[in-house]
């Protein structure tokens, strides 16, 4: 049962990477804006700032006002990355080093809790519910299940089949819905940083 499922996960991963690459190239295909006004600042410094200090609570009121959501989001993402890490070991047929077994378990299970918390917030906050499309729920449920099962399967190996099925579904879904932000987060933040860097707003003077 294990081997075909491994192949399914790998095929789904290939699909995800390929489809994401196409989506990204299509977005790039909209072309670059040629800027003629002389720069007031440094684009690269703006990009650097956008990926570092601009994301910290000191620079971001939205983070300061929503610290629990920010924390839940961070844990959710860390848990998801950890689950992908564990998946890579499983697919490679290599045992996880003993020193990381428990940290990975904790990270994935905590990540799943973070995901559940965000799902509950989405369902219970009126303006978040209003903002949401089915994609928001599907993406969260798949990712949360993936992280949860990664942790659970390391405790109960009989859950590994279910985990690999969910991993396949997640990877198949990944380029279709909002999980696309795994690439568009980086490009968007880079564009924003370059824009504000060029205009001399980033890095912040305050």
């Amino acid at each position, binding site marked *: 049962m294990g081997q075909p499922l491994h192949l399914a996960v790998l095929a789904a991963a290939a699909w995800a990477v390929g489809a994401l690459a196409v*989506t990204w190239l*299509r*977005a*790039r*295909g*909209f*072309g*670059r*804006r040629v*800027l*003629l*006004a*002389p720069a*007031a*600042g440094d684009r690269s410094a703006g990009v650097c700032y*956008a990926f570092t200090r*601009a994301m910290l609570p000191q*620079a*971001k*009121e*939205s*983070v300061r*006002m*929503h610290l629990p*959501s*920010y924390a839940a*989001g961070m844990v959710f993402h860390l848990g998801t990355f950890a689950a992908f890490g564990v998946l890579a070991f499983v697919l490679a047929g290599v045992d996880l080093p003993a020193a990381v077994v428990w940290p990975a378990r904790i990270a994935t299970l905590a990540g799943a809790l973070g995901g559940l918390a*965000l799902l509950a917030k*989405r369902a219970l*906050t*009126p*303006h*978040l519910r*209003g*903002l*949401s*499309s*089915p*994609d*928001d729920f599907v993406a969260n449920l798949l990712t949360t299940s993936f992280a949860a099962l990664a942790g659970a399967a390391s405790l109960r190996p009989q859950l590994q089949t279910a985990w690999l099925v969910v991993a396949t579904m997640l990877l198949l879904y990944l380029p*279709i*819905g*909002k999980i*696309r*932000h795994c690439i*568009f*987060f980086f*490009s*968007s*933040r880079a*564009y*924003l*940083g370059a*824009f504000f860097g060029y*205009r*001399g*707003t980033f890095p*912040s*003077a*305050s």
Partner: protein
Amino acid sequence: MVTIEERIDALTERELQHGLDVFRSKLRAAEASYLNACVHCGLCAESCHYFRMEPTLENVPARKLDHVAAVFRRHFTTAGRLAPGLVGARGFDRAMVRAWLDAVFGRCSLCGRCSLNCTIGIGLPRVFRAARAALAAMDLVPDDLQATVDNSLRHGNNMAITREDWVDTVQWLEEELQMETGDPEARLPLDRHGAKMLFTVNPREPKFFPLSLQASAKVFWAAREDWTLASDPGWDLTNYGLFNCNDEQAGQITQNLVDAMARLGCTTLVIGECGHGFGAARWEGPEWLQRTYPFELRSMLDVMDEYLESGRITVDPARNAKTVTLHDPCNLVRHGGVSEPQRRVLRRSVSRFVEMTPSREHNFCCGGGGGQLAMAAYKDRRIRSGGMKAQQIKDTGAEIVVAPCHNCIDQLMELNKEYRLGVQIKTVAEMVAEALVTDGPPPTDGKGTT
């Protein structure tokens, strides 16, 4: 006259397609990335002054973005074409046009505060500008905003001031300046060929706030600057093409400035105190015209900062003894990159300067940006959303609010009344002029914009 609602009802499929084509033509890779990136986390909600003062779904920045992104997904992504219900994709129909109009004209001042607070880093105003451009292409710009643009195109200034009235006002202010300084040689020069600086103003100054123009002239006088005003088109720094997002019209208005510089042979274009005017001329103008300027462009704030730094003018802060705070116009500061010159100037020119919280690029929009002052239909929302700025002002305890932008000043004056702030509202130049130490007679009683 056909109302905007009637125009939407009468839209043909061809016109809708044209709007969509224009929308597509305004998108570049950055906007395409932004339109693919929102995760609907909702963390941007409170960054918007509209949402803060009226916490409804339609005021959440991401909701405004989503109206536009839904169309993008439906027409420009495979997932949106194949599974629109799943990913929240929607076609560009009359209902969507209404939603766009309400979101990008009616509930957004293009202030960009949401961008800094977005989890992802989405430049929402860039997307909203593309949507406004699509609406403009379908003749769906609110009439009064479009009329302001039309005034600039027809009369060379957005208030349709005649050349005669403008020249009369300048000459009258020259006499006032001579009386104020006691110097019969003090000038508001008009059409001085070969002057170093061409100084441009907001038409609200000759029309309603002549003292602010006089204050700038006094600063030039004290600095012994080689400057001029233009009597023909090119004296008005405003450009509401930044707000109707019709780039062709915006380019024509920018061309007035370029032509005046060529006509008068000046080397430096000085943009007076106006946020959107600075943003339009400094940042967007070269893109609209698709060429670089053959001259230097500076903000009046930068010019005054240099005068003070170099000792070309001197000021006595004791002459401005009241507590002063500073409003940061979004197009000048967050989107314009000019945040420090005005601070250095004020710290030198006033006794007590107190920052608003938050300030600089984190400032709250006053509510008057994005062309909101020119759109009567959304006036109630504009005044309500300005409540954030009113609260910020109250919290400083300041007696004078300095705003280096005449659009913001208009809005702040309305907020002053509505929220009973009891403050005076002035430009930076007015504060400097008041504090100038010159050989002339003592300063006036400090009457300002309000």
